[in-house]
Structure formats: structure tokens, C-alpha cells
């Protein structure tokens, strides 16, 4: 039985809760997904969803959750998508937004441009037999990763998915599609 928390300050929270429940079902694992607004509780894994990174960062810092996540930085598996990816990074290129810094990487906000440059495509991901749908919304790009990080997907423009031990960062939105393989991949990083 695992409990996956989704930080619920702002953004696509509901979509991640649904995707986790479906991924657990596909894997035949017992577990649940819970929205987190004040504390981390006893979650076994954490998802930081997409939304506005400036807003999520500001709201999260006002609760004790920011400190709780940092206290469990070593052992807690965390997945960040889009804004969540920015919050995981140790460095944000040309920007001041405060981050948790759980993954040694540099991320550039809105790297593709504004909403008119947002797109969807099929993406090759290392270790996946078939491409996964990628929805990129005012997406960031991963510009640099540390030595113990593994790049799982990249496009001509730059890196879009990376893993560093028990941390997973994606600049796109798997929660906006019916395809839950990326959530399954993350759940496989979480021990019972």
C-alpha cells in the first residue's frame, strides 16, 4: 500500500490524482493518491504538478510543507511536471523563482516561448518501447544536468525529461492525456 501525495496549491492537481489512481490500477498495486495543501503527512512519494511556478513556489513557502520536503530530500521519491520540474531544479536560468533544488540541473522557464508556441507531439523516452504523447504548455527546457542525472528524453531544442536517483523531472504534461505509462514509471521508482 503506497500513498502518493500531489501538492495542491495551484495547477493541474486533479489530473495527477486521476492518473496516479489509474497507473496503480494498471500495475495492480495497492495505493492511493491524496491532494496535499498544508503538510506532507506520511506520503511515500510526491508529485509537484504543472501550474505557475511563481505562484506554487510562493504558496508552498507559506506552509510547513516546503521545510518538510527539504527534510526528506534524500529518501522521498518526487516527480515534477512543468512548473514542478522548475521547482525541483537547483538552478533556474535568468530567473529568481525560489526552488526546492532537489535535482542537480538547470531549467529555463518558458523556453519555447508563449502559449502560441505550445504544442503536442509524440516523444521517444529511453526505456519505453513506444513513444509517449507529450503536451508542452509554455514549457521549460532542461539546459544542464548533473553527473548522476540520466536524460530520458530530448528534442532538437533541448532536454525534456531527466531522472536523478529517486527524482523525476519532465517539462511536459503526461497528466493531460489518457496515457499513464509515465506515472507507472514513477510508481516503479517507489518501494512498497
Amino acid at each position, binding site marked *: 500500500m503506497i500513498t502518493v501525495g500531489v501538492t*495542491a*496549491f*495551484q*495547477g*493541474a*492537481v*486533479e*489530473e495527477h490524482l486521476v492518473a496516479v489512481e489509474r497507473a496503480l490500477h494498471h500495475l495492480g498495486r495497492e495505493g492511493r493518491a491524496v491532494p496535499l*495543501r498544508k503538510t506532507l503527512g506520511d506520503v511515500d512519494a510526491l508529485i509537484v504538478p*504543472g*501550474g*505557475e511556478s*511563481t*505562484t506554487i513556489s*510562493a*504558496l508552498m513557502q*507559506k506552509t510547513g510543507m516546503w521545510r518538510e520536503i527539504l527534510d526528506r530530500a534524500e529518501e522521498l521519491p518526487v516527480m515534477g511536471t*512543468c*512548473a514542478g520540474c522548475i521547482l525541483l531544479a537547483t538552478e533556474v536560468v535568468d*530567473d529568481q523563482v525560489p526552488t526546492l533544488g532537489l535535482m542537480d540541473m538547470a531549467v529555463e*522557464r*518558458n523556453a519555447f*516561448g*508563449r*502559449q*502560441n*508556441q*505550445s*504544442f*503536442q*507531439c*509524440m*516523444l*521517444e523516452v529511453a526505456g519505453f518501447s513506444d*513513444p509517449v*504523447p507529450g*503536451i*508542452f*504548455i*509554455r514549457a521549460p527546457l532542461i539546459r544542464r544536468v548533473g553527473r548522476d542525472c540520466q536524460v530520458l528524453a530530448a528534442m532538437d531544442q533541448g532536454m525534456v525529461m531527466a531522472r536523478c536517483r529517486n527524482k523525476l523531472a519532465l517539462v511536459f*504534461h503526461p497528466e*493531460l*492525456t489518457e496515457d499513464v505509462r509515465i506515472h507507472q514509471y514513477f510508481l516503479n521508482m517507489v518501494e512498497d
Partner: protein
Amino acid sequence: MPLDLDLEGLMYGTELVKRGFAKMQKGGVIMDVTTPKEAITAEEAGAVAVMALERVPADIRTAGGVARMADPKIIRDIMDAVSIPVMAKCRIGHIAEARILESIGVDMIDESEVLTPADPFFHIWKHDFTTPFVCGARDLGEALRRIHEGAAMIRTKGEAGTGNIVEAVRHRRMILRQIRELRDKDENELMEVARKIEAPFDLAKETAKRQRLPVVDFAAGGIATPADAALMMQLGNDGVFVGSGIFKSANPSKMAKAIVDAVANYDDPAALAEISRGLGKAMPGTNIDEIPQGERLQERGW
């Protein structure tokens, strides 16, 4: 939605991408601003986006005459000042204004009743655009007609520029009741309702099944205090637009932060009490029955 299997193919402006943008705004506050300085205040307060305007609705109401799209220079200056998304308004049915806003690169277009309508027959066919649209609605039929035309997000119309929440609540209550009334209806009965409320059948059916609007659904029009914002969230809205409520208050920066906090803590009365303390004067309010029938903005559009 079928996805192109071509690995090189990047598809722009799809429904998934447009509705996805709106989903990233959920749980957030979108603030009306008229200058780069106000936009920075909004961003620092935690706004998820700003609406770039020449005048806030309260001033549009006072000025009278024909209200049009803002000067592109004002919009561009605001886009340059902040990193969060920037939205702008065009007149109902004004395809040319909408194309101008798209070419400037605003992140979302509000086809808004706050401006004077340009087309007496049609709203914009929004599927033709790469930029997503948000539109106002007073009831379920109006909301589903806008979604059918391609709106990626719906907001209540409320009564903009009044600082009076009653019309936003009226529209939200109306939509909630009409969604609830769709429950447990068979296809024939759904067809009957769809015809009555002048909504496309497929969207009525999807709404009946999901028991919510098929797109992100914000509150707008009259939100003036943190408690107003919390009320709309308690009524099930996904987030709020605040127009005149912030920069017509005595302390805009404080009010902006308080409304952001209120949306994040909408179901925690003790937190709301703390958030609402000592904010200074809210914007002055207007009673709806003091506004002559023909001057009510919510009656624009159909």
C-alpha cells in the same frame, strides 16, 4: 483525441493544448492590470496570469461610450514586464481585434462583454485560432454554446466593475443547478433539455456525465474581497478573475496577496479570517438595481 504518430510533427493550437493551458490556471487568481508596474505587483502577489487592459471595468463603466481592445503598446509593455501569462480582451465577434491580439502573442484572449460588442449576430469562431479563448456565461446554455465555438475556458459574467458579487453568484448557481438537472436523464430527455437551453447535444451529454463543465470554469465579475473569492471557490469554481477589485482598493498589493491566499485556503474559515484582517478599504461597490437595464454588461452576448 487522436495523436499524430509522426515523431517530428509538432501540433500547435490543438484542443488539448488550448484546454491544457486553462488547466494550468486552476486554483489561481487572474488580475486586471493597466500598467507594467501593476502587472509586477500582481505577479509578486502570486497571480497566475494578468489581463492587460487600458482601463479596469469600473473605469470603463464610468467613461461610457464605446469600449475597444487596448492599445497593443500597453499589452506589449505588460508582456515584457512579467514572466506569467498575459491575457487581453477583444470585443464580442471582433475577429480583427482577436487576430491582432494573437499576432502580438497574448497567451489567452477574453472575448468579453466588458467591451462593446462588435457583431450583432455572431461570437468569434474560436476553433480557427491558435490562441486559446475564455468567454463569459450566465447559464449553462450560454457556456456550452461558447465551448462549441471553441472557448477553452469559461467564466461567469457577473457584473463587472461593480464590486458586487451577487451576479457572479447568480450565474454560478444557475450553471450548477442546470448541471445537476441533467443527472439521470436518458438521451431523449437530454435532447429535450439541450433544445430548451439552446446547447449542442453532445456537450450537454458530456456535461451530464461529468457533472461539471467540460472546460475550466472560473468566477468573474464583482469579486472585491478575499471572502468573495473564497465564496466562488466554495461554489465549485476552478479559480477567479479579479478586475477592478485589486487596483481600485486602498492597498492593491496587500489586497492582491490576500485574494491569492484566500483562493488557496478557501475552505479554512480561520485562515480566511486572518487573511481578511486590516486590508484597508475594498473598492467602492454598486447595487445592481442602480444600474439602468441597458447598461448592464452581462446582457451583452447571447
